[in-house]
């Protein structure tokens, strides 16, 4: 049976990992490839790289990174952060990314989802949605959470599914950074609204939070700092889930 996925996210700036890491036995804590390799050894199911570089050099450094990762790693990875054209998607996939995610550019131009799915394939195109509760609905935010849009997260999820998105990377702006757990209501609402896999993101503080996300209907759940700072190893999270009847890949 298809296993629930545990995903680690890495924020990248100028080709380096942004958040400090305190891994022992790592030669270069800021090197995304070193960190990614560590996660592969720990049994991570997938990696997500979010490029937050704002400079002119952005595209080149991201492509270089994608090339290095695809040469060095034997697990799937997704990249995104400011991707705004089909050409960029194609370049990232051609250089070794398994999946590409889009966020702001898809809201600005929904056709990008349809065109992107035709070129790189539906199952390789992820749409990232940042949501925050506003009254009765979850409102979509873009530009790294700075800009509120007149768009409901559930409706947007349904729309991108129709347009050909293969997965939704769903981040709760309220939960993000709190370590109080994923936003279960939001996760549940999205999983119910769409048929494609939903990746829960934002708020992971421990293995029990992953459990809650899968029970709420997420196919995958993503964390950054608890793994970076080694509060939990991937294996510990998976053992916890396995003991509670969640189907996870425990082999490494």
């Amino acid at each position, binding site marked *: 049976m298809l296993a629930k996925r545990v995903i680690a996210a890495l924020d990248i700036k100028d080709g380096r990992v942004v958040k400090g890491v305190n891994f022992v036995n790592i030669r270069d804590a800021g090197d995304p490839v070193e960190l990614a390799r560590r996660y592969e050894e720990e049994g991570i199911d997938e990696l997500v790289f979010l490029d937050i570089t704002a400079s002119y050099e952005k595209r080149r450094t991201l492509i270089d990174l994608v090339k290095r990762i695809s040469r060095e790693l*034997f697990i799937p990875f997704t990249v995104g952060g400011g991707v705004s054209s089909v050409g960029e998607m194609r370049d990232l996939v051609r250089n070794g990314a398994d999946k590409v995610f889009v966020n702001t550019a898809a809201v600005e131009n929904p056709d990008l989802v349809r065109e992107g799915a035709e070129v790189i394939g539906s199952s390789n195109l992820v749409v990232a949605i940042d949501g925050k509760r506003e009254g009765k609905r979850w409102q979509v935010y873009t530009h790294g959470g700075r800009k509120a849009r007149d768009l409901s997260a559930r409706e947007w999820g349904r729309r991108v599914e129709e347009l050909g998105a293969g997965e939704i990377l769903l981040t709760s702006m309220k939960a993000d950074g709190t370590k109080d757990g994923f936003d279960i209501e939001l996760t549940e609402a999205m999983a119910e609204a769409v048929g494609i896999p939903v990746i829960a993101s934002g708020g992971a503080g421990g293995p029990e939070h992953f459990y809650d996300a899968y029970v709420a209907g997420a196919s995958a759940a993503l964390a950054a700092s608890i793994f970076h700072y080694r509060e939990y190893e991937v294996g510990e999270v998976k053992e916890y889930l396995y003991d509670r009847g969640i189907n996870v890949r425990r082999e490494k």
Partner: protein
Amino acid sequence: MIAIVDLDVGNFANVQKALGGVVTRDPDEIDRADRIVLPGVGNFGAAAEKLEPLREVISSSVEEGKPFLGICLGLQLLFEGSSESAGRGLGILPGRVEKLPENISPHIGWNEVDFDGRFQLFSSEKPRPYFYFVHSYYIQPAGKEMVVGETCCELDGEEFRFPAAVRRGDVYGVQFHPEKSTGNGLKLLERFKEL
């Protein structure tokens, strides 16, 4: 030497790292190779078109008994055609490619594979090893005897089983990505070199 056929979509640096060999779309190079790997991502029709100039050399290599491994779309291209788009597959294996049932499409993530243990390529100390899948279409071979590995998803409370690996003679195909399946996948690729 192993020829890793490049259809211009996707990057196979890690296939090459695991197997050695050359990434190529030169028919002469493929002809000289002693093994062929056809990896592939993307759209069936687009890939089939890119494959057209290589049809002959691939078909004749397979007839000679050169070990062949199709990965993901590369597996699907072994068959006659796909409901994804028009375009002619290699037709080396009889059967077609169809869309997965809606509730389990796309099939993304790690799933267990039940292999027919008689084949060295798929031997494993694990009863049902995990491999990484990412696809929306699946193969429907004309004969069951070529299916040597199956995977399973839950569909409306029932088990939906579908082929994950096929074999006929020295032609092998896998729906999953060994090059993305860490230890299990690397072992499979390693064994392909020894066939």
